[in-house]
């Protein structure tokens, strides 16, 4: 308390100095007078009396000084002094200040922007009460071809829920979509199926109405729905009378029981929630995310141990199925950010490098300036400033520069964060709504600015104050170069090395991206427009009804002006889905190779023409290949080669049934080229196509993508395609309408984003490094003007001087590249999971980026080299 009071009074003591000084002078004066009078009384002569009093006091000025130190806060006062002085120095050198602040603004701004995203996506808590107690329960394959998101099979969920004792509640949920009708135009909305405990687990309640009752997961009672605030406002005018009303989801009536609070859209930005009944079906086992809230005092580790024990005891699956299954308790956030973390960590590392390069640049600037300020430092030291005091002064200056850079950096980030998000592929950055510049981001920027200021300021400050007083004063006018030279070269070397690492990373990503884009998908995506529709089985409940819809749509589409061909496929290429299955061959001599599975799309006549898939032999499906005609299939080339190498597959028979009856045999009538179904980076999947008119399972018919090949710009037919859908069934919403090229671009959006961003950072790094090289060379040429003058006077040609500078540049850059390459070899390995057909140590890429760096360095050296070559020996010799 006393300390605090004293501290406060000392703070007050910083103000109103003049009055306080006057009072102090008065007090000391009266003290002296009293002392002198006493001394006179003892018989001293007046002069002696005064002298003795002064000695006893210990000097007027010293007393005042120590009194003032106690009165105010010397540390603070010095800081204010330093700040004032620093501001004055920075104003006096606007060029230096602008370059230093600008360089740092780039580095700090990039870091702030990336941290803003990292903070929003990875660090900020989920918007639920006590989100750190929410965990995912997962028992999934972690390796091999079927790597999945954290989830639990339904049977495991039920068993785990029965046996568990550590979670307050558990809920299973899944995201899906539904057609909303009866509320304006039909529209496709994002829905979530959740068990009744879902909202209680998250501890989020509807803002209006109620959540699900325990029995509402039973058939017959489950026709209820909770709406998101957003959907409620968009579609129902925020009218609370909607409660109790019925809306249609996929044609089935659901009565609205609640509206969630604004901003709530978990999971997957859901717009409506319906109850989910988890029950065991002997044919299918769904695997869904499961979230639970741990009881107070229970740790994640305990839950993990419980899950592992239960997994061994309860999840009695055949041994071979259990292989590769991993039991995990994961933070809930993992569901959303698991995929993006890798990219973000790499971006954060990359901008960190950019900032280091910026630091090295500014340190070099400060070093150059320190040489010029040697005399100033010496004079200040001579006047009594301690070395620590001088260092503190210089650090104040660099911290001020860094803070100015940080402030500009925040401005850059304000502009940069939206740009960053805009660059990112839509839907790929989870929790995008959490991204904003908040207190944490500002604190982060302030922190790195201060650290930056100290990092780049420390070495120059020590250098500037190191030389002895006599030495410096003696050398006044001339400058010390040797020692600084080594430090500056080391800084430039590290800049080049860091820039090379970034360039190598960006180069690898670029090469990988180009390779990916050059992949032939097996069809011609140009001029193809697609339209995807989901037919709800509540309205279209027989395959015949669905086929009527498809037929009418197709005939109208092919009649549109500008359409060359129209077709349909149930799961389109590169759409992220495929139906894989086995089949049988109608020849005992040629058994199906074990493990050979095929994709089984259903297509309409004209599909191959619409997509531009090459026909290799045989004929296409036609309208006559209908339910009553002989059943036919078309296979891809890889199927033909694998099953009937060297022979014509036309006329051979296969069956999709495990135990085919005589009518189940399908005759091959054609062979087409293989296409990429799963993704450009994946291999082509062997496929057996069936005509949709001969398929009767609704599952294969309800989801259909219609494609048209157009004579001109495919987007121009989009309005007409919408019109066709309205004519055929005005209640069916479009799931999507896109050109095939846009759809392909979307599959490469993520690598494109990564490549672009790393590219931007790498270019920034090279530019900064080039500026650094320029700075060092320009400075050294200026320092060596005298020497160059002598050389030229002794007969050196301009070309010799030019090469002297270029030689130095090359030596610097080559050393930097060697160090950087060693670092890059170690670091690019983190990229390997993002690279397609490129090794992280790809020699061609390394060579290319090294060459690029050499060119950048030579370009940076050009001006100093020319300046050196133009030195006039007469002027140079007269210079000193």
């Amino acid at each position, binding site marked *: 308390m*006393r*300390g605090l*009071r*004293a501290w406060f*009074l*000392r703070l007050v003591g910083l103000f109103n100095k003049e009055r306080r000084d006057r*009072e*102090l002078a*008065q*007090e*000391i004066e*009266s*003290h002296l*007078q*009293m*002392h002198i*009078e*006493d001394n006179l009384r003892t018989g001293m002569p007046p002069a002696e009396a005064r002298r003795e009093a002064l000695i*006893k*006091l*210990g*000097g007027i000025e*010293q*007393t005042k000084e*120590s*009194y003032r*130190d*106690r*009165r105010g806060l010397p540390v603070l006062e010095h800081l204010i002094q330093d700040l004032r002085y620093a501001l004055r120095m920075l104003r006096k050198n606007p060029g230096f200040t602008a370059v230093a602040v600008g360089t740092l603004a780039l580095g700090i701004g990039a870091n702030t922007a990336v941290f803003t995203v990292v903070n929003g996506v990875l660090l900020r808590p989920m918007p639920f009460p006590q989100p750190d107690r929410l965990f995912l329960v997962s028992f999934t394959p972690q390796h091999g071809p079927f790597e999945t998101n954290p989830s639990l099979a339904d049977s495991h969920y039920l068993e785990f829920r029965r046996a568990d004792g550590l979670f307050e509640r558990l809920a299973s949920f899944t995201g899906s979509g539904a057609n909303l009708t009866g509320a304006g135009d039909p529209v496709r909305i994002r829905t979530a199926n959740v068990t009744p405990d879902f909202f209680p687990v998250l501890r989020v309640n509807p803002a209006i109405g109620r959540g699900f009752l325990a029995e509402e997961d039973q058939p017959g009672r489950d026709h209820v729905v909770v709406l998101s605030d957003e959907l409620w406002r968009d579609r129902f005018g925020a009218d609370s009378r909607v409660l109790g009303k019925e809306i249609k989801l996929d044609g089935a009536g659901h009565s609205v029981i609640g509206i969630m609070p604004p901003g709530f859209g978990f999971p997957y930005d859901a717009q409506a929630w319906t109850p989910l009944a988890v029950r065991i079906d002997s044919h299918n086992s769904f695997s869904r995310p499961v979230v639970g809230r741990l009881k107070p005092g229970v740790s994640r580790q305990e839950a993990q141990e419980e899950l592992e024990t239960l997994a061994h005891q309860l999840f009695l699956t055949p041994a071979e199925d259990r292989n590769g299954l991993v039991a995990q308790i994961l933070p809930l956030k993992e569901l959303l950010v698991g995929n993006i973390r890798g990219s973000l960590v790499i971006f954060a590392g990359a901008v960190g490098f950019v900032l280091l390069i910026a630091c090295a640049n500014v340190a070099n600037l400060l070093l150059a300036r320190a040489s010029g300020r040697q005399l100033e430092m010496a004079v200040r030291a001579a006047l009594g400033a301690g070395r620590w005091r001088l260092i503190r002064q210089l650090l104040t200056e660099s911290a001020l520069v860094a803070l100015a850079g940080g402030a500009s950096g925040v401005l850059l980030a304000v502009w940069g964060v939206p740009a960053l998000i805009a660059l990112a592929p839509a839907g790929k950055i989870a929790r995008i709504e959490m991204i904003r510049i908040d207190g944490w981001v500002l604190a982060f920027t302030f922190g790195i600015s201060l650290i930056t200021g100290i990092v780049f300021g420390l070495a120059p400050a020590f250098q500037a104050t190191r030389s002895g007083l006599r030495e410096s004063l003696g050398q006044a006018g001339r400058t010390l170069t040797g020692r600084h030279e080594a430090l500056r070269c080391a800084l430039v070397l590290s800049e080049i090395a860091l820039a090379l690492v970034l360039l190598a990373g960006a180069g690898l990503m670029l090469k990988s991206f180009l390779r990916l884009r050059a992949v032939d998908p097996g069809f011609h995506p140009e001029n193809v427009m697609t339209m995807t529709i989901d037919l709800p089985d509540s309205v279209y409940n027989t395959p015949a009804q669905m086929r009527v819809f498809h037929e009418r749509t197709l005939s109208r589409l092919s009649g549109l002006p500008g359409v060359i061909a129209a077709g349909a496929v149930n799961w389109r290429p590169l759409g992220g889905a495929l139906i894989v299955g086995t089949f049988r061959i109608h020849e005992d001599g040629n058994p199906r190779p074990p493990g050979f599975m095929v994709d089984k799309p259903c297509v309409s006549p004209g599909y191959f023409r619409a997509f531009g898939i090459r026909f290799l032999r045989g004929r296409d499906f036609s309208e006559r290949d209908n339910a009553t005609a002989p059943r036919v299939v078309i296979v891809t080339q890889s199927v033909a080669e694998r099953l009937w190498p060297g022979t014509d597959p036309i006329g051979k028979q296969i069956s999709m049934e495990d135990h085919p009856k005589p009518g189940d045999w399908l005759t091959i009538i054609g062979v087409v080229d293989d296409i990429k179904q799963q993704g450009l980076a994946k291999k082509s999947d062997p496929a057996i196509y069936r005509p949709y008119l001969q398929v009767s399972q609704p599952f294969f018919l309800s989801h259909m993508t219609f494609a048209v090949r157009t004579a001109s710009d495919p987007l121009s037919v989009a309005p007409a395609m919408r019109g066709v859908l309205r004519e055929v069934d005005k209640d069916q919403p479009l799931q999507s309408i896109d050109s095939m090229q846009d759809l392909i671009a979307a599959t490469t959006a993520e690598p494109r984003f990564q490549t672009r961003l790393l590219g931007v950072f790498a270019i920034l790094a090279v530019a900064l490094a080039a500026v650094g090289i320029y700075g060092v060379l320009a400075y050294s040429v200026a320092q060596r003007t005298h020497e160059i003058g002598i050389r030229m006077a002794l007969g050196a040609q301009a070309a010799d001087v030019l090469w002297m500078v270029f030689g130095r540049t090359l030596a610097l850059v080559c050393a930097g590249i060697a160090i950087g390459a060693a670092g890059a070899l170690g670091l690019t390995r983190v990229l390997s999971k993002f690279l397609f057909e490129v090794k992280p140590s790809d020699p061609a890429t390394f060579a290319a980026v090294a060459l690029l760096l050499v060119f950048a360095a030579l370009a940076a050296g050009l001006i100093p080299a020319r300046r050196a070559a133009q030195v006039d020996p007469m002027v140079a010799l007269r210079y000193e």
Partner: protein
Amino acid sequence: MEEKADVWQGTLALMVLKTLETMGPLHGYGIARRIEQTSGDLLSINYGTLYPALLKLEQEGYIASEWGTSDNNRKAKYYRLTRAGRKQVEKEAREWEQTTAILARFLSPKEESS
């Protein structure tokens, strides 16, 4: 020069407080003289160091100051003990007694043995 002990900060504060307790309000010069006299002239303080010490005590609230007139009609700043200061004198005096008593026990047998 006769041998005189230096005074360090903590003890100086206590001496000032004790002086003010026994003497009542006093100006800086008076306090300095009084401390020297009380110590039997064994202590020599730089009078200048007294003023920062007084300021510190004032900032801590143990003493208060105001301008007054001295015996021979000179304007001077007078310091007096506050209530908190009185308590502090008691407390610190007690602590000093304890400390010196403990130290005395350490020092006396040592003298015997050496």
